[in-house]
């Protein structure tokens, strides 16, 4: 199986803290990490390769430093990588991102499956996967939590939706997005780390890709961020006083008064 995995480098969310006095970001220790959901996508790609043979191509669109993340992908089992990096790609929304990724994926010969993470932790949209599928003209299945079986040109998978689980059959090639329930990503092997050290990470620019400049980056984006602000946290909290019995009694009284119970 020839598998493509889409990875994005993101700032580590849990470290994004806001200084309540100045309402600004606390800058120290913001490290770039692989989007956590994409590590499951990569692991699943590597597992499929181990089961059915083939190769895994890790692809990312991002600034030059995303190279380090792709090196880690090799250590974790990817066979080859592609970095799409060009100032012209900056400021891309999901539409322009999906278009750019699709143009690159189309150049990969005979791929059977594209795996994305369920969503990024910076953009948080989960839109790139389905938009990419449409750009490639392929079926799309979101929230995959298990790949049951793959046969020539076909795959049976399970996915998680709000109401429960669906078992779905799809022809290949297809695009899927995976949830964290699908696997437990492995740690890089020693062999992988050595391989990653010497790996060549090809960088494709807008020119290499031969893309229409009006379709990529900020110019190719349909949406624009016009304002960024920090959410106001409503702090009307009241800690109840007295011993626990009293607190419980007063809580129930308050709830009865406001007629919620």
């Amino acid at each position: 199986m020839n598998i493509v995995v889409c990875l994005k480098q993101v700032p580590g969310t849990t470290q994004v803290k806001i200084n309540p006095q100045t309402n600004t970001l606390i800058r120290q220790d913001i490290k770039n990490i692989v989007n956590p959901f994409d590590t499951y996508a990569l692991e699943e790609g590597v597992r499929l390769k181990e089961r059915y043979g083939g190769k895994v191509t890790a692809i990312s669109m991002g600034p030059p430093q995303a190279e380090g993340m792709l090196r880690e992908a090799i250590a974790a089992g990817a066979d080859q990588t592609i970095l799409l990096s060009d100032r012209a790609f900056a400021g891309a929304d999901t539409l322009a991102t999906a278009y750019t990724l699709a143009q690159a994926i189309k150049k990969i010969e005979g791929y059977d499956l594209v795996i994305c993470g369920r969503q990024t932790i910076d953009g948080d949209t989960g839109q790139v996967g389905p938009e990419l599928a449409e750009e490639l003209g392929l079926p799309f299945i979101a929230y995959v939590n298990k790949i049951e079986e793959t046969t020539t040109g076909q795959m049976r998978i399970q996915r998680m939706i709000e109401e429960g689980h669906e078992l779905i059959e799809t022809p290949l090639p297809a695009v899927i997005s995976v949830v964290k329930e699908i696997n437990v990503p492995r740690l890089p092997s020693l062999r992988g780390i050595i391989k990653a050290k010497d790996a060549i990470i090809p960088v494709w620019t807008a020119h290499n890709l031969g893309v229409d400049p009006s379709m990529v980056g900020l110019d190719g984006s349909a949406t624009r961020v016009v304002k960024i602000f920090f959410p106001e946290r409503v702090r009307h909290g009241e800690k109840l006083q007295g011993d626990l019995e009293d607190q419980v009694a007063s809580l129930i009284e308050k709830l009865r008064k406001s007629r919620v119970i």
Partner: protein
Amino acid sequence: MGIKVDLDKCTGCSICVSVCPFAIIEMIDDKAQIQEGCTLCGACQEACSYEAILIEVTTETPTPNNGHHGIWVFAEQRDGRLKNVDYELLAKGRELADTLKTDLSAVCFGHNVSEIDQLVAYGADKVYLINNPALVANQEDLYTSELTRLIQEYRPEILLAGATSLGRSFIPRVAAVLRTGLTADCTGLDIDTEKRLLLQTRPTFGGNIMATIICQTRRPQMATVRPRVFKKNTPNNNRQGQIIKVDFKKEAVTSRTKLLSFIEDITEKVKLEDADIIVSGGRGLGKPENFKLIEELGGVLGAAIGSSRPPVDEGWVAYSHQVGQTGKTVGPKLYVACGISGAVQHLAGISTSEIIIAINKDPDAPIFEIATYGIVGDLFQVVPMIIKKLKSE
């Protein structure tokens, strides 16, 4: 296209460094330097008193509404029943349509969907309905091609859909075919009346930052909206509206994927999204058996059962109970958080709850900052006390 610092104008005041939400501006030799990762959000440009920051954008021709008019709400159904989020979107859509002095339509795909006229009672002027047995189950391939076809034919200027599993999965595909903008998971919608633009506000960075997004030149402007963010109106059964039956050309579209089976999650007795009262448990419960305590309190209150992420990860409770950024958004009248610390990713799912109660033994837990009433104490003491008291009354 791009962002530049005019080094002659830059005084090295560092204001831009502190306002950059992405923390990618650095002072080098007393001049601001913008590093990789800029999203061109403009926060620095706005804050700079010296007009030293320049953002170049290829100017696009404004107001391209050319023939696009009206607001559409995609009304999702499951098993022939409309979802609550449909009505919430109609309430907001009605408000936006009145501001824009245009009409509001609902679009529904399904087979023998009951209470279709309720879409009118809740605010729609028109309902486009495709009624066909092939649409009994949610078929995303068919939904994508049919919604795209209808939008191309009727040209609405705005389309709203619920940010449900279905909406988040197929609406982006429609946007990609139409090559238009889509904003995910909005929690606020407004109109810039002068430019006739939809102002779409949504949390990013797991709720740490809010962003307002526009789609300037392409149509329709599309957004998915979190359930339970907007309040539905009281239905008016005397409202007049038109139900337009649209033909489904089954021969023209086929689904490539096939739904083989569906296993419903039956542990969810009361639907979280629709619940008026939710009792949630977190890692503070310590072990799977203790979830029974949450269920007991839930039983007494007639509540749905929620969870933070750790109990789901540990397998104490099914994923369908997870509340938060990667779980469900809820908006009950009463949310009781037991042994939950209140991480932003959890809070992202509960912020529209009317009353939040926190029971946590750590007085510094962030949940107390947003809780209406907090009890600092051991949940294994407090919860049984509440149950006893409620039962005795």
